[in-house]
């Protein structure tokens, strides 16, 4: 028991030493724009925090006041539009950068030793950023926000239907706690406001402690890039400030109703699946993401040398884009599509599995040819030790 704990502690200490969250010094390749993503995550996060605190000076967190106060900020208050634009597009940029960085780390194999902890923190931060996103756009109290919040908070009630465990009332309790009452109303808005603010502020304090204790650089990006990002965000806010949409109306769900862009693919999946699965599937996805460093145990980092995990990642990208496109164009026939999607998924994953087997056999044969050792013939050839 103690030995296990000691091992775990050692593992954690080692990975903590080599955390590479924002400065990208462990993998620095400054010639490649994909390797300033860490800095951009930090930069956009700070833009969002600062602009958010400025917005709080005028925002009114009530069901009757929220919508009007955001209108007021956008159209009446001098420079209100740029603060709101920086907050909105800064948040979008944060999620974009985290997502791109997750894909980069996945396809470049950077989640492998010693990057496991970095990967897990990054993946958890994507989940937290999405929670911040949904709690944040509910604060606008428009139609999109209202129905997104109602749908998301109804999902936990299906946890009471999980077979074998039985109804513990846990799902309804979770829903109630986030709703702040039996229905979506003022209680929900207040609690979402608190969560939206709380996530970023608590994590910012944790991150500052990390910087203080490790003397890492916060922003390993040139001043030019920082100015470029700020000007770009302000420019986008100027030419295309997001429309507020319609005031939330609790007696009418608009048709069509869309969520924010990073939830669109998930939204389409929810249309295809029974609700309990749709509640469990995202948890499985998050579980896969968190555990993938321990599932993919080879030391290979090149995608073609770990075919199965490469194909899983590729499928994730294609589905994410494909489902988002389906829901935006509204061309899916939900009574017809699911069997095809299941079929494609199973065939592709099986093909990937075969590819993996074939690759390993070829490696084993090559290993046997170069070093005739009968014991090593059945397992992959010894690989050059990375890291």
């Amino acid at each position, binding site marked *: *028991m*103690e*030995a*296990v704990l000691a091992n775990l502690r050692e593992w954690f200490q080692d990975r903590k030493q080599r955390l590479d969250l924002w400065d990208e010094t462990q993998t620095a390749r400054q010639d490649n724009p994909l390797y300033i993503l860490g800095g951009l995550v930090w930069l956009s996060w700070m833009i969002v925090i600062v602009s958010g605190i400025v917005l709080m000076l005028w925002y009114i967190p009530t*069901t*009757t006041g929220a919508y009007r106060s955001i209108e007021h900020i956008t159209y009446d208050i001098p420079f209100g539009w740029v603060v709101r634009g920086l907050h909105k597009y800064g948040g979008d940029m944060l999620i974009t950068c985290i997502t791109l960085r997750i894909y980069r780390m996945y396809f470049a194999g950077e989640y492998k030793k010693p990057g496991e902890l970095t990967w897990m923190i990054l993946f958890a931060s994507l989940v937290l950023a999405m929670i911040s996103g949904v709690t944040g756009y509910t604060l606008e*109290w428009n139609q999109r926000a209202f*129905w997104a919040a*109602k*749908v998301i*908070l*109804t*999902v936990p*009630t299906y946890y009471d*239907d999980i077979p074998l465990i039985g*109804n*513990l*009332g*846990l799902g*309804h*309790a979770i*829903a*109630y*706690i986030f*709703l702040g*009452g*039996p*229905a*979506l*109303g*003022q209680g929900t808005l207040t609690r979402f406001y608190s969560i939206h603010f709380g996530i970023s502020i608590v994590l910012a304090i944790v991150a500052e402690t990390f910087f203080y204790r490790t003397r890492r650089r916060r922003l390993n990006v040139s001043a030019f890039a920082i100015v470029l990002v700020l000007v770009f965000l302000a420019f986008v806010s100027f030419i295309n400030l997001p429309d507020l949409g*319609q*005031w*939330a*109306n*609790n*007696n*009418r*769900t*608009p*048709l*069509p*109703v869309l969520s924010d862009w990073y939830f669109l693919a998930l939204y389409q999946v*929810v*249309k*295809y*699946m*029974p*609700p*309990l699965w*749709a509640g469990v599937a995202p948890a499985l996805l998050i579980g896969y993401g968190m555990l993938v460093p321990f599932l993919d145990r080879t030391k290979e980092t090149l995608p073609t040398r770990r075919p199965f995990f490469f194909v899983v990642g590729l499928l994730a990208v294609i589905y994410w884009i494909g489902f988002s496109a389906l829901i935006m164009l509204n061309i*899916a*026939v*939900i*009574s*017809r599509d699911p069997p095809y999607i299941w079929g494609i998924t199973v065939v592709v994953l099986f093909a990937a599995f075969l590819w993996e087997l074939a690759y390993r056999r070829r490696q084993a044969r090559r290993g046997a040819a170069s070093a005739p050792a009968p014991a090593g013939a059945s397992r992959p050839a010894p690989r050059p030790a990375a890291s």
Partner: protein
Amino acid sequence: MKLDRRGVLKALTAIPVVGALIAVLSPFFRFLKPNDKPWGIFTITPDLPQGGAQVVGKVSQLAKPWDSFYFTYVQRFVQYTPEGQEASNVPGVAIRLPKKVRFVNSEGYVGFDGETDIVLFSRICPHLGCIYNYVSDWHEVSAGYGGFRPPGFEQHALMACPCHFSIYDPEYPDNPGNVISGPAPRGARYFRFEIHGDDIVVTGAEVGAIAQCAPGGAASPREA
């Protein structure tokens, strides 16, 4: 993994300590959910909302088959407010069917005693809580709600949800309001109602579906 006497004893002492800690702290969860009684945070049977009898419309508004109207039934939930409860809307739809049916669903909820050709459904989608629409022309359902094309005997007015495209058939045989397409796990929820002369009186609503809409922010000047 090494399991010696010291480890076992430590683990054994830890159990009551952790248990006591949880026991001491658990009442504080009521900060988040104050209408629960102490020690009852995960109540399996929730406090039932009360509605009472409310007249929601007239039979004469439903003269022809497939005539319909929307209405709102107000229920009061036990809630930690100065009044001790909070009012919430349950939007509903009343429909005249072409033939008389027994208004009982497969969950066994009885909406009306005896046979009726007037049926009242809660418009809160049993899937994830959006408000579904009564669509008098099924072609509109095919065009706007995920491309579902009903088979011949269901080519009449349907109920369809804008969020995830669950489609309900108000005169589904033996289970009016059953889901015929989409992800919903069950049919539309019922109102229990009586007919007194020309009045349609709702006396209750099928329980389920949290997050009925609070009437608070309903005043929406930009309503489309």
